[in-house]
């Protein structure tokens, strides 16, 4: 087998391993998914306390049963237009791995759809063009229910330097 073919096969099997259950949600009319195992809970929109000196997409913090957790607006994180929070806007609380261990964060999404079982065969690698998102954020593209869902590597999305290295960005 040639080198290239081997590589493709490796990638394919890596993608295959991404199969499983995903929670799907929408952001600016596009469908996304993240691994259900990382989802702690889904809560309706609530008052977010703004934290000064943080990037735009860091909306602030909320009280989750006595714990203070940060909330990220995914639209803003992905460079999409900000939207008014409506009835269907939710916060998905996920647990991701950071350098200091597991950490809980909330992400604001337009609406939550459903939990889908995604087959390994239905996952394709992310195209290297035409996506706003940096490829490192995407696990792959899944075909499901006649549409495509962009599967997010939520650990990477939420623990990129921009967030964990939040410094005082000027008063």
């Amino acid at each position, binding site marked *: 087998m040639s080198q290239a073919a081997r590589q493709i096969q490796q990638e394919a099997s890596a993608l295959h391993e991404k199969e499983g259950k995903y929670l799907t949600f929408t952001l600016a009319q596009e469908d996304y998914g993240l691994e259900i195992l990382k989802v702690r809970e889904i809560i309706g929109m609530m008052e977010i306390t703004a934290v000064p000196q943080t990037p735009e997409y*860091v909306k602030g913090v909320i009280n989750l049963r006595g714990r*203070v957790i940060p909330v990220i607006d995914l639209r803003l994180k992905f460079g999409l237009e900000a939207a008014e929070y409506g009835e269907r806007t939710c916060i998905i609380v996920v647990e991701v791995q950071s350098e200091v261990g597991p950490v809980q964060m909330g992400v604001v999404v337009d609406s939550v759809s459903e939990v889908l079982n995604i087959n390994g065969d239905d996952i394709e690698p992310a195209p290297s063009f035409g996506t706003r998102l940096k490829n490192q954020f995407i696990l792959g593209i899944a075909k499901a229910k006649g549409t495509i869902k962009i599967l997010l590597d939520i650990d990477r999305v939420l623990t990129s330097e921009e967030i964990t290295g939040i*410094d005082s960005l000027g008063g």
Partner: protein
Amino acid sequence: MTDQAPKSQELREGLEGLALKVVMLEEGDLPGLGAFLTHLEKIQAILPADHGPEVALLFQQLEDVGNKLILQEIAPVARAQELLSQGVSLLLTWARESTFPGESEPWKVYHRGAQELGLMKAAAAPAQAEPEAEPEPAAAMESQIWEDPELVANFIAEAREHLEGIESGLVRVEQAPTDLQAINAVFRPFHTVKGVAGFLNLPQIQELSHEVESLLDEARSGRLQITAPVIDLILAGVDRLKDMLDDLQEALSDHRSLQRFDLQDIKEMVKKLQQQGVPAEAPKLAEILEPQEEIAAPDMDQALKELQAQEKTPPPAEIQVEAKKAPPPNAAPPPVEQVKESKRAPVAPPAPAAPAAPAAAAEGKAASDAQLPATVKVDISKVDNLVNLMGELVIAQSQVRQNPNLLTISDPKLERDLAQVSRITSELQMISMSMRMVPIGQTLRKMVRLVRDLSRKSKKTVELHLEGEDTEIDRNMVEAIYDPLVHLVRNAVDHGLETPKERQAQGKPPEGHVWLRAYHKGGNVVIDIEEDGRGLDRDRILAKAQERGLVQPGEQLNPTQIDHLIFEPGFSTAETITDISGRGVGMDVVRLTIERLQGKIEINSRPQQGTRFTLRMPLTMAIIDGLVVKVGKERYILPAVAVRETLRPAASDYFTVQGQGEIIKVRSQLIPLLRLHRLFRTGNGDIPPTEALVMVVEHEGKQRGLLVDDILGKQEVVIKSLGESFQKIKGLAGGTILGDGRVGLILDLGGIFALAQG
């Protein structure tokens, strides 16, 4: 051979039993040998008084053979067992008849056998022990170390823990050099490390541990006295071992081979110390003089000189440790012995308190035994969980009490009941916090070694006083407090204290004093680090600060403010940055660490008299008294302790400076104004102060006026960490859940002040 009385029935039966045991012995039959020896002992106890020397010898030899068989120090085994049988047979004959069969054939056979096995010679060299597959182990374990890196990592971690235990154990040994328990506590870790190192094929570590272990073993059996040089050697061993472990760790992760360590110096020292053993007492003065009948003055002087010459001169930098502990209630006070080597010619024997010690040591052990409280082992995560929930309960309880609907009800019984709930909650909270508390003693004791090393390196004599070792602090604080303490202690010895010469020139005693005190006061843990040295050089500090532009020329600062300048980053007035301090880690990091623990650090210094640093940290790391203020749409919490007063300034008290900064006049003081609206980009950034509220806050000697819209209330606030993501944000100490369930941000004044400036 004299006739001996007929032997008792009991004796005969006993010997018959012994014979039975011998007959049943198999090769390598340890239980059998054990039973044999025990039985032999029993019989020895019922021997008639006139049993004669041959019988005594026989018993002794049988025991000897038995022991050697157990330890596999006699060969051939079959021959030895046969000898046992022959010996017992002789005893049986003796028991049945009245005389010992000294010339009989069986006796000769036995005698020959005993000689063959090397039992008859006085200083018998033990017969060749059967080589028990010794060469095999080394080969079989060659690769083991890399086969299981996790095991090696475990070993490294545990060994390090043990080494720490040794350092604090040595303090105990220094105080009570003949306390067996204390010595054992230091012996065991070396012994254990040696054992494991053998399995992991780490010969250097094995060898080093063995050297120190053998020294300590001698001490355990009283063949060696624990003096200061011995302790030094042990500490040197600990350091070398630490280096080896570090090397091992690196070798493991980098996949390289181990470094070669030179152990010659340690080995030589061990040999020297072993030879010293227990030094003979220098003859007392009276003894020296006794041989002469009269004692003339010149003879007296001569004798004194002799005595002084024999007296070891104490090393230049001696550390004298005085540890004050609260005496246990039902036992005599533990031995507070000062390991001092007297410089004056003693008339009393110079041996360090040897006779007094054993009694004291026994007392010490009795005291600690009596103290053993009943304890429960609980998973720390459960305790943390409990503490968190308690915090929640405090908040929830507070929320209920503040419920506006509730406030409209006027019902005395309800009032009382709510007050009761509040009281119980508070108490529950105290108790759950106390579960996480540990005595600070261990941390303080770690400073003993540090001071010892520092005083040595800087050639100063330092006396360290520890107070309040039983003071408890939250376990999460213990680690955090270590580095700041080390830094402050280093500063105290290196910069605070003068050299003995300088001190004497000032009329001070040559030895410098350092005090480490820990106590509870007003809901805080307070730690003092005090020395009686030179005090802070305020002129130098001011000059340096002006150089750095931290202080404007002509700016007036009170002494406290000048002192606090040393907390600015990069500030070190030491001329030389020695390796022992001034690494640029600096006082700013110390301050930061303390503030992170919601604490404060105060300085109290007087020129020529010394300096005292006081660390004050809340007992409960997590709860503070907060003032909730409104700034624009947001609410923030200020620590109530920092707020001096609140006012709405009159127009006449408000000034602007060059169109840049703003100042409020409060009575006769001028205080800079900080606009939180602008800092946090909320609300009206231009609101005139006369229409807002100014909160005068103080932080480290500096006062500022914070502009806010309104004060919403005062409440106890549980500090929640904002999480790793927000750790570095200046000005925020954490978050809390307010009465309405929303998050309120808690302000960190130091950060706020800094932000406003930059």
